């Protein structure tokens, strides 16, 4: 017999996380995208929509809401020549995996004794890869079921691109997992909290003056892994400079050419959700997740007194730390998008298969070598 | 008889702008130039009128070979033509005839300067009111001023003011400031229609075209003066300010006002006719047309035009679709056979419509078929006393010896109760001697007409047809000439071309589905009617072909031919 709280608590977590955090973040990252692109291009961007029927603009923060209303109210047009079932299925198949992956991301330490992760799986990264690779079906289906040439080409491009970059994505992560010796993302974050972030090993046992020689040498392969991983996330989420599937100049809008209204919005949201989860994953793996830098966590825990129980305010601090890091990455994503031109398709494939794949493979051996040399076998 | 045989001696060699051509002796220089494709600008000259030579626009440089002194041989050039001595002064090309060895230069400096000078004088007093002038767009003053004019005026004095907006006749308005005094209208009135009411009063720069205060230009051919006026001095009240000429699409067609069949040009824009004027055909109407014929098109603008097929149910007519109306009409008519059914066709129908009427009559086995005779007053010019445009066609196609004579039988048949059904095509029966009581005794009456007339009110099925400018077809005029009618505009609403309606009835009655195009109807007719043998619809051409000899002639054309013989006009 399962207790009610065992059902209720995860349910609350899911609802709060998805509907209060991820979806608003998705919406507002669209707004951020437009604002940031505007300021990069010496423009204003959406700055008008504020509180309805007033002149209060709030710098355009109401824009996502009106966008949402617009998407809901627009005519949901299904062209006559499409394969209806898959045409309807495709947007859901893009959106759902993107949101599913956030189940294993630890977005905070603890709050009122509850771990701030929906499912504390001990195969976190594997789960994410497994689910994330499902979203390619959405795109392939969208491209195929649209029964029109541009979406079809977009779908093909997208699937081959995602398959290619999943390899370097996975391989680049192997060194990280080697370093932590752990597949539970919460444990990885706690480890980083105590002994220094992977890319900032400056306290705890990770610091070189505390004998963390291994972490010092491992910094370089980690950096390489970080670069490969981040770049691959760009490709995986179809963002510029790798947005070949929806390349306007060649493919009109790629796989979602035939979509309109909310179905189109689902693709759009799926892309941004994937971007948020990607950022969350990068932050979790390389930049200490919810943890504060320089061992502040431990110090604050000491201040709180009880070493077993994380106080609620610290829990909130951790959550916000995580969100700040993620937002920073989202802005980085946006910044890159409005800076770099699109790759040519062959360049994209070449980068994936000839550069990143080999580098990531090499990186595994280097990391393994360093670990073998610097860590004494227990 | 000896003269009629044209030998090469009747031709003379003329050099026009450096090229030698051969033209008949007695040709006007202006016509010789026209044959050499050198258009000489002119205002007063008109081939159908005498040449007073008063506009001076057609000045050209002329030269003749020198007369050799006795015993001396003429100096010849490489082509064997005598050398031309050019005259120092220009001559008018409209009133002079060519001579052997004559040279004409239309593009020399002298000729160009002369034209430029004449243009400048003509424009001195001409008002700058092209924006409101109806002639704009087809005004030779505009055209020549662009082609031959100076581009700017050197005239600083104030222009002479003359009467504007003068009422000189019921259909014509005169603007004397625009007049270039070419006198075409004066000559037309005098020479062609013998109504010499126009003249020039006041000498010098105040020279003004006028009618005597007691007289008006009101003969039935007055609007021809508007056509031949090279500028906007004479404008038609009917067309005045209605539409600019450059918007109009011109359709070659026929006037159906009488049996003359004058060739016309119909000017229309966006489904509305704005004017109808004569088209030159020297076998029918020369270049003229009567005023009443021009106004024929107003009949198409009748507010009572039928736009939908209707079936009478009880006392009211209900609008139905075409299929239903045609089926109903065919069903109603086929219930009666032989003497029970009569068809009253119209002399205003085209040959094709008449032919389809004939086939319909054959398959319905109609007892009596006849057309309505309609005569009025004709005149000694163009207007014919037979006011139906195609009685000759009806004669030949419906095999009627004397059209209209069988209407008596129909009257009698209805009175006896023998005739129970009537198919009426394009006629208003109450207008031609039938009474309401008479028609009330009929079981069924199908009407094809374009106007909701009293007969339509009594008909069981009403099928809306098209007016003469809304359909294609052919007609035979009083002198036996087969001519083509063309479609200028669409008929209003759902109304259809009459031949389509008749064909629909034919199909519904006999179940055959063969002919689909008007030309096919004509094609079928060529084998069924002997006078059309060997013809095709396209072969009729714009000017028509003579298919029968009616022994009639056109008085106006005969007088014109005499004037040509007398050398008064070119023709």
């Amino acid at each position, binding site marked *: 017999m399962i207790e009610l709280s065992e059902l209720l608590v995860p349910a609350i977590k899911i609802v709060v996380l998805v509907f209060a955090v991820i979806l608003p973040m998705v919406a507002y990252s669209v707004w951020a995208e437009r604002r940031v692109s505007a300021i990069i291009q010496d423009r204003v961007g959406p700055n008008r929509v504020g509180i309805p029927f007033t002149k209060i603009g709030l710098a355009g923060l109401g824009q996502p809401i009106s966008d949402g209303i617009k998407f809901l109210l627009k005519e949901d047009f299904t062209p006559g020549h499409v394969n209806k079932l898959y045409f309807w299925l495709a947007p859901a198949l893009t959106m759902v995996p993107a949101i599913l992956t956030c189940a294993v991301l630890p977005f905070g330490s603890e709050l009122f004794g509850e771990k701030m992760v929906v499912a504390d799986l001990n195969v976190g990264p594997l789960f994410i890869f497994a689910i994330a690779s499902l979203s390619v079906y959405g795109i392939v289906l969208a491209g195929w079921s649209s029964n029109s040439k541009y979406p079809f080409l977009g779908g093909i491009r997208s699937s081959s691109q995602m398959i290619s970059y999943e390899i370097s994505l996975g391989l680049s992560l192997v060194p990280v997992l080697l370093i932590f010796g752990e597949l539970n993302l919460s444990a990885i974050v706690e480890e980083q909290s105590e002994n220094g972030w992977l890319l900032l090993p400056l306290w705890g046992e990770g610091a070189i003056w505390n004998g963390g020689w291994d972490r010092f040498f491992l910094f370089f392969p980690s950096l390489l892994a970080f670069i490969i991983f981040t770049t691959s996330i760009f490709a995986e989420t179809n963002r510029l400079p790798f947005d070949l599937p929806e390349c306007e100049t060649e493919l009109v809008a790629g796989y979602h050419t035939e979509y309109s209204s909310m179905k189109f919005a689902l693709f759009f949201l799926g892309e941004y959700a994937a971007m948020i989860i990607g950022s969350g994953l990068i932050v979790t793996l390389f930049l200490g997740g919810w943890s504060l830098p320089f061992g502040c966590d431990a110090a604050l825990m000491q201040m709180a007194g009880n070493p077993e129980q994380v106080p609620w305010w610290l829990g909130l601090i951790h959550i916000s730390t995580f969100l700040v890091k993620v937002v920073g990455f989202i802005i980085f994503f946006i910044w890159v998008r409005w800076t770099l031109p699109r790759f040519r398709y062959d360049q994209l494939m070449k980068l994936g298969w000839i550069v990143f794949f080999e580098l990531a493979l090499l990186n595994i051996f280097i990391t393994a070598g360093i670990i073998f040399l610097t860590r004494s076998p227990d | 008889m000896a003269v009629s045989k044209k030998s090469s001696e009747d031709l003379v060699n003329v050099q026009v702008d450096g090229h030698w051509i051969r033209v008949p002796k007695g040709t006007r220089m202006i016509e010789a130039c026209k044959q050499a494709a050198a258009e000489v600008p002119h205002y007063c000259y008109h081939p159908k009128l005498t040449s007073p030579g008063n506009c001076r626009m057609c000045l050209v440089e002329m030269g003749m070979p020198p007369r050799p002194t006795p015993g001396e041989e003429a100096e010849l050039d490489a082509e064997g033509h005598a050398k031309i001595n050019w005259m120092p002064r220009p001559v008018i090309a409209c009133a002079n005839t060519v001579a052997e060895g004559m040279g004409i230069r239309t593009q020399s400096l002298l000729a160009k300067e002369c034209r430029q000078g004449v243009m400048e004088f003509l424009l001195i007093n001409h008002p700058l009111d092209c924006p409101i002038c109806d002639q704009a767009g087809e005004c030779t003053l505009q055209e020549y001023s662009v082609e031959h004019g100076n581009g700017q005026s050197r005239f600083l004095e104030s222009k002479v003011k003359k009467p504007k907006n003068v009422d000189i006749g019921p259909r014509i308005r005169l603007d004397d400031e625009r007049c270039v005094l070419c006198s075409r209208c004066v000559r037309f009135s005098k020479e062609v229609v013998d109504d*010499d*009411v*126009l*003249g*020039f*009063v*006041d*000498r010098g720069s*105040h020279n003004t075209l*006028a*009618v*005597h*205060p*007691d*007289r008006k230009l009101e003969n039935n051919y007055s609007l021809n003066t508007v056509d031949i006026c090279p500028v906007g001095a004479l404008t038609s009240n009917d067309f005045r300010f209605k539409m600019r000429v450059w918007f109009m699409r011109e359709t070659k067609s026929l006037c159906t006002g009488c049996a003359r069949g004058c060739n016309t040009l119909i000017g229309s824009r966006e489904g509305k006719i704005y004017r109808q004027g004569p088209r030159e055909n020297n076998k029918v109407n020369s270049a003229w047309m009567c005023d009443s014929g021009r106004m024929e098109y107003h009949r198409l603008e009748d507010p009572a035009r039928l736009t939908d097929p209707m079936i009478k149910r009880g006392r009211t007519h209900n609008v139905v679709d075409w299929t239903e109306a045609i089926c109903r009409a065919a069903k109603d008519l086929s219930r009666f056979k032989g003497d029970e059914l009569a068809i009253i066709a119209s002399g205003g129908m085209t040959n094709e419509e008449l032919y389809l009427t004939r086939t319909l009559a054959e398959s319905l086995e109609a007892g009596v078929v006849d057309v309505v005779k309609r005569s009025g007053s004709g005149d000694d010019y163009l207007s014919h006393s037979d006011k139906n445009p195609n009685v000759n066609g009806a004669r030949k196609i419906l095999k009627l010896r004397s059209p209209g004579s069988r209407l008596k039988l129909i009257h009698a048949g209805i009175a006896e109760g023998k005739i129970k059904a009537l198919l009426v095509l394009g006629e208003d029966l109450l207008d031609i001697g039938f009474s309401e009581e008479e028609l009330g005794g009929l079981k069924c009456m199908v009407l094809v007409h374009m106007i909701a007339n009293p007969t339509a009110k009594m008909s069981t099925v009403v099928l809306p047809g098209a007016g003469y400018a809304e359909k294609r077809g052919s007609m035979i005029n009083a002198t036996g000439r087969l001519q083509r009618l063309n479609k200028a505009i669409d008929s209003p609403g759902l109304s259809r071309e009459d031949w389509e309606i008749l064909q629909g009835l034919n199909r519904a009655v006999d179940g055959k589905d063969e002919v689909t195009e008007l030309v096919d109807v004509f094609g079928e007719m060529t084998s069924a009617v002997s006078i059309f043998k060997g013809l095709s619809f396209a072969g009729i051409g714009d000017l028509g072909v003579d298919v029968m000899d009616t022994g009639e002639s056109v008085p106006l054309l005969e007088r014109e031919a005499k004037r040509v013989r007398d050398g008064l006009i070119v023709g």
Partner: protein
Amino acid sequence: MEIPKELEKSADDAIGHYPPEEKRSAALPLLHLVQQEFGFINDDAISWVADKLAVEPIKILELVTFYPGFRQKAPGEYHIRVCRTLSCAMAGCHKTMEKICEIAGIDRSKVSHHDPIAVSSDGKFSIEFAECLASCGTGPVCLVGDDFHEEVKPENAKALLQQYK
């Protein structure tokens, strides 16, 4: 308008000078007869002439308006024509005209192209400008009735008019 018997007769006489099919050639002689009889040619006269010659009245009107010698309005007892062609104009005919008008009490302000004659208020004199009277050496010249007067300088005007008192 009453046409006197004599006029009718002399008109027929004039018409008889021309072949019957070219009757209209008698238009000018007829108009002269009319003007001699009445002093001017009014609309009725034009219609009468047109009827006589079997032409449209406009054709006669054309003639009347073409020749400055024909008048459509009644002149004064004495009709003065002052030459205004170049030589006389240079010799001062306009001044002469002004002077004559002043003395005879004629108001020329209403004169126009269509109505060139001005009549004095007492109806005694009427005046108009005429083109060359063929005595260029002795300008300004004028014609009173059928009398020809040369060198009519403004100062001679009074003497000239006095002859016709």
